[in-house]
Each structure stands twice: as C-alpha cells, then as structure tokens.
C-alpha cells in the first residue's frame, strides 16, 4: 500500500540497476589499485615488473575462464560445484595415451568434449530431472573426480614429445606482443562471455530466469532448455580451462582443479553477482578473479604464509556479501 509514496519518489533517469553495478565495480577497481599500491610499496622491485604482471595474468587466466561460465550459471539462479572435478577429468582424459595418439587436435577436442559432456549431464539432471543444482553438481564433483582417478590410475600423465607443440604455447617464444597465449584465450572468453550476457537474447533470458523463474516461464521462455544450456556453457568453459591447464603444466592429473569451484564462486560473489541469481556482471567477476590473483601474488612476493592469504580472501568474501546484502534488502523491500 505504498503506491502513492512510490509515485512521489523522485524520478530517476538513469537505470538504477546499472548504476549499482557500476558503483560496485568501481569499488573493486579501487581494491585492485589499493593492492597494487601495497605491492609497489612492499616489493617495489619485483611487483612492478612485466614479469610479475605476466605471471599474475597467466595465473588468473585458467580460473578466469571457469569463472566466466560460473557467472552465467549463478546469474541464471544455479550453482556449479563440479567445475574443479570436471577440469581434472578433462585433463586426464585428454592426456591418456589413446587420446594423445590423435595429436594436438585430439587433446583439445577431448578436453572440450569432456567438459561439454559433463555439463550436459548435470544440465539434464537439473533441468529435466528436477534435481537441485547443488546436489546434481555435487554428485558430478564426486563422480568426475573419481573417474579421473580411475582413468589415470592416480598417475600424472605428461604430454608426449609428439605433442610438444601444444606445451610450447606456454613458453615465452609463443607470446604474442609480449602477451602469453593463455591470457589471450582468457581475454577472448571474457569478451565473448560479456557479449553473450549483455548483447544477446540468451543473456537476457539468463537474467530473467535467475531473477524470477516463474515470471520467465509464464512469459513463454523455455526455462528448462535454457537452464540445461547454462550448465553446458559452464562445462564448455571447464573444457577450455583444461586445455589451458595442460599447456601450463604439460600434463594431466586427477589432482588438477582442486577447489577451483570455491575460487570461481568466490570471484563471482565478490564481483557483485547475487548468489540467488538474476543480478550480476561479468566485468565484476573478472575483477574478482584479478583481485584474488593479485592477493596471491602479493603474498607470495612478500613471503607470507598461504594461511594468511586464505584468511584475507575469507575476509574479502564476507565484506563483499555484506555490501551485497544492502542492495538485496533494498530490492526486496517492496
């Protein structure tokens, strides 16, 4: 019954939704700048070098690609806990002797196919089998990791000399204008993701489904198919990330991607995406990944223990969520 009050509220010309995300992204940029300043003050010689920047971006790129997929899933109202395990499975499967005999194309194809396949399975379970996303992806987490261990017999599978060209992509000789190919892949995935999320009907429907599933359904959107595709997309990102990880480590092992799901979810959340869906930005998620990676690099350079680093991440997540809640209560107040 506050209609008249609403009517009298000052008309705001700018889209409030957009403005809020802008403010939040500005905040993250601020955090990033702050971290760089801290780095410059504590380890001036090392931190401000190109080498560190390249290292930082390379470290960010694998988890970054996964975060892009995760952003879609979370904005669409879901969650994907299986990403780390799927990465493990994809790297293992793509580096088996059998796969490697097909050459580099075989490795890449296999990694991507495993990712998409796993995403399709979870997507079908969630969208058509009506399983809760948390449970379905938790099950995928367990079984994908299990299958990875089974396939590799617990061994680390190195990329054979025949396929050395793939691993070479990780070396300095392959840098394009000083930028590692991995970083370029990350950039490409992020830009593509941004376009899909903001400039296509698919992206708009993702927001709609996460924002109000019932309204989306009653507006005639095929919410099941769309939900399923979100997990396929997340799987695709895992597949790409697996290829990148193989390049980076020149091997595949069932221990790969451990706790990636938590890093990706954390990056999405501090990027300002609501865990309940319907709201969020890809730019925020990318900034989230960069903030986390910068913290890691900073701590490593300063020889601080990883325990302190984890603590800092935890504090950051809590702070981000506290800020988020202020906006979400505003949203639910009517």
């Amino acid at each position, binding site marked *: *019954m506050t209609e008249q009050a609403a009517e009298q509220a000052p008309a705001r010309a700018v889209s409030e939704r957009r403005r809020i995300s802008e403010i939040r992204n500005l905040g993250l940029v601020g955090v990033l700048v702050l971290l760089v300043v801290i780095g410059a003050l504590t380890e001036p010689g090392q931190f401000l070098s190109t080498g560190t920047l390249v290292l930082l971006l390379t470290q960010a790129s694998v988890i970054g690609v996964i975060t892009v997929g995760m952003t879609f899933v979370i904005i669409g109202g879901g969650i994907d806990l299986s990403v780390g395990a799927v990465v493990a499975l994809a790297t293992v499967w793509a580096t088996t002797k059998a796969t490697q005999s097909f050459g580099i194309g075989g490795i890449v194809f296999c990694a991507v196919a495993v990712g998409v396949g796993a995403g399709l399975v979870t997507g079908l379970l969630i969208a058509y089998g009506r399983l809760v996303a948390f449970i379905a992806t938790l099950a995928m987490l367990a079984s994908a990791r299990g299958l990875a261990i089974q396939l590799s017999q617990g061994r680390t599978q190195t990329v054979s000399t025949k396929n050395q060209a793939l691993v070479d992509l990780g070396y300095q000789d392959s840098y394009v204008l000083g930028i590692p190919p991995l970083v370029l892949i990350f950039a490409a995935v992020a830009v593509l993701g941004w376009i899909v999320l903001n400039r296509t009907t698919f992206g708009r429907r993702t927001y709609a489904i996460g*924002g109000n599933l019932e309204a989306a359904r009653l507006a005639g959107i095929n919410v099941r198919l769309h939900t399923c595709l979100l997990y396929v997309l997340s799987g695709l990102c895992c597949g790409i990330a697996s290829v990148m990880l193989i390049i980076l480590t020149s091997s595949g092992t069932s221990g790969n991607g451990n706790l990636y799901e938590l890093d990706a979810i954390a990056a999405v959340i501090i990027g300002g995406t609501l865990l309940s869906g319907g709201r969020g930005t890809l730019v925020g998620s990318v900034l989230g990944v960069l903030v986390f990676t910068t913290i890691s690099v900073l701590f490593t350079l300063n020889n601080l223990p990883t325990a302190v680093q984890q603590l800092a991440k935890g504090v950051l997540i809590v702070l981000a969520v506290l800020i988020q809640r202020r906006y979400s209560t505003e949203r639910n107040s009517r």
Partner: protein
Amino acid sequence: MTLVEMTGIGKEFPGVRALDDVELSVEAGEVHCLLGQNGAGKSTLIKVLAGAHRPDTGEIRIDGTPVPLPNPTAAIRHGIATLYQELDLVDGLSVAENIFLGHEQARGGFVRRATMRAEARKLLERLGHREIRVEREVGTLSAAGKQIVSLARALSLDARLIVLDEPSAVLAADEVANLFRVIRGLTARGVAVLYISHRLAEIREIGDRVSVLKDGRTVAAGLPARTTPTGDLVARMTGRRIEFPFPPRPAPDAHDGKQEILGVTGLTCDGAFEDVTFSVREGEILGLAGLVGSGRSEVLETVYGARKATAGEIRLAGKPLKTGVGPAVRGGLGLAPEERKSQALLLHESVARNVSLPSLRRYARFGWFSAKAETDAVRTHTEALDLRPADVRRVVGKLSGGNQQKAVVARWLLKGCRVLLLDEPTRGVDVGARAELYRVIRELADSGVAILLVSSELPEVLGLADRVLVLREGHVVTEADARELDERRVLDLILEEHVHD
C-alpha cells in the same frame, strides 16, 4: 456478557478507506460470523483485532476495559488468537513443539519435553482429537489436522476469542462437521469464536449472530444467524457503491458474427474444475465470477498451458492448441497472473526489460541484441497505456501497482497477443488507478483482442465484461450477458449450493 467490543474503528491505506466507523461486539461463548464480499474489509478488521494493523480511529474494549493492541503479542496476551487461512505452523517440528512454539515450557533454559507432551495431549483431548500423536511431525498432517493443532495452540495461549478466517475453505465436508463439533466444545466452555466464511449454510449451522461488512462499514451488527433470511443477508452484502466509472460497453449484439478466437470445450482438470465450456470472440470480454477456490484461476492457467488438463479441448482461432506455455504464447495468448510480483515481474529490472521479456527474439539478429530497437518498441506501448513515469529505464519494482499492471499488459501488447488472460488485474491497484485500467482493458477489446477476466470483485466483473461465466466449486453454473445479471443474482448463484445443503 460482552467479551470484545470494537467501536468506531477506522483504517485508511493510501488511496483506500479500508474501514470506516466499524462496530463489532462479540459475546463470550458465542460463534459470531462475519460476512462480506471481497474487499469489504473483513481481513483488515481481523488484522486490527490480531494487532497486525493499528486502527486510525476507534476503540477496542475487552471485558469493558479499553485496550491498545499495538502488536500481535499484545493481542495474544489479551486472549485473542487468530488462525489465518495459511496456518503459521512449522512443518518440520512435532505437534507438541508447534503447540508450544514461542512459549515452550522450560526450566533453566531446558525444554521440559515430557511436560510439554503431556500438556499437548491434554489440549488435543479437550478438542476431541486424542488420535493425533503429539510426537508426529506437523508436515505429515492433513489440512484438517493442522487446523486442530492450531486450535490447540490457541488454547495453550489461554485464548478467549479465537478468530477463524475461512477455516472450511481447505476442508472436506466431514472435516467441516468435525470442526463444528470442536467449535461447539470450545463455546460451551465460554470461548468466543469469530467465524469468517462465504458459505451461508455453515453460518446457519454454527453461527449464533452475524455481522455484515460492506465497503468497510458495518451494515448489520449482531443479526440472528439462523433466522435472518438469506435474501436479507445477500441484500446487505450487495449494492456496493460504484466508485469507478466503467467504460461504455458495445451493444449486446456487437460481437454477433465475430470470429471465435478462443474456444474451450469440456475442459477438466481433476481436483480443480470440471467440464468447462466457453467461447470468446474477437473484441469480447468474458468475465469469470466465483469464490476463491471455485476454479477461476485454474481455468486461466490451464488455458495458458501452465497446468495440464485431464480432459477437454482448447481451440485458438479454430485450431487445437497444444499444451504448454510455449505453444500458448506463440499462438498469441498472454497472461497477467494473479500474483503480479512473484509471477510476472522481474522487480529489480527496468520497465523496458520487463515488457520485452517474451519478445526478445524480435530485437535480436542472430542472437545479437539491439537495446535501442527494444526500448523504442517498448516505449510506443507504454506511452499508449500512459504508463507513468514515462521513462522505461526505471526499475519496475518501484512503480505503483497500477503501473506495474500496465507494464504486464504492455508486455503482451508488444508481443501482439490475440487473447489476454487477466487474473485479478486490479489487485493491489489503488482506487484512482482502477478506472484507468478498466479503460485500457476495454480499449484493448475494442482493438480486437479477446479478453478473459477473473476477479474476486463482482462489480468489476459485471461492470467490465460483456458476458459472464459463474463458477461454483469447479462447475459452470450460469453463462449470461453481463447486462442481464446483477450483483445479487450472481452472489446468489455463487452461494446457492451451500444454502440448499
């Protein structure tokens, strides 16, 4: 002896005078019935009594002493317990735990489980329901069982007045009989019951006295429940003042020879409605009247494909319509659902994004979206509907109810729908904005859209629709030209069966 006396109660919400000088006096040990149509002010009145709303004017006396009821706790402390339609029980807790929720029997912070169970058992026994095990999880009980638990809870709070808001709506016939037994047991011990129901037969059976509300005023206070003639009661409930000018209707024969757009034959949905047949022609507004639970909304949902029909046929412009929301929307159906905020809108998104939701593909080329084409198209429709503020980038959740509803209507105009299903289009819309919505709805019809209108407000259905279908307990009881019906006649039809059985 008068237990609770309310005098001069007034309550105003922005744009609506919900209660105006209302009187109600309940004696100890009586069953006092409260009658009135939707929007008459019953809910507001019981919320005042429950301490959920503070009245602007008036006085509440308990045992002759004026008492303020600023919050629900105060009302409970004064012995007033209210059982709303959606019972506030915790499904995961046991019967005993629910009965004592919030006033657990404890010693030194430790819950005395055995004492509580024994007490709960006693209370249930008092209600004649020894068979409900107090250890049982409440979620596993039927609606009737839950009601008994709620009543036991009221007793555990030493309630002297128990307010029952349409308790029979969720019950089967034999369960209602049992509820009445329980109520009689309570009144015999001096507990008063304020009983709200639309079913006249029940009021005759259980009630001692009846008060009638209309337009937020008391139009009858304390009539004898058993002997007051039905016609008298209905007459008092009807004839609500017409606050809204309804747009002029086309002549009765205006739609003759027009093409049927939506045809429904023998539509059945088990447990909701049965054998519903109707036809809506181009430019026609068909109203569905009936009580909540008569199957009105379910009919709309089934036509829209959001609910599966068990039998029957739906035709769109003569062709059978496939089941499912997707085919319905592609075929040109649009729904403005009952719960606007939870079923229709993305509250934190802009008006433009809300309006374009089903038409996204149109503004995309190979998936690439043109936001400009979208907002331009949206704007032409929101301007035509005079949606305010005119800026389509504004967040929809901050608009008034009337403008939110216009956004939903604009959505289907943009999509280009041929049949518009409106479920309670003016719910939560303030009085001033209603006339505006009525005009919009009529203009839509005049432009050739077939409209199916569901509303709990009889004057709205009768004033706006061309033809009216009256539903009672899932069956069509009458279909007639709206001009041939009046409020009393329809109310009679809606209530009839209960009067006769």
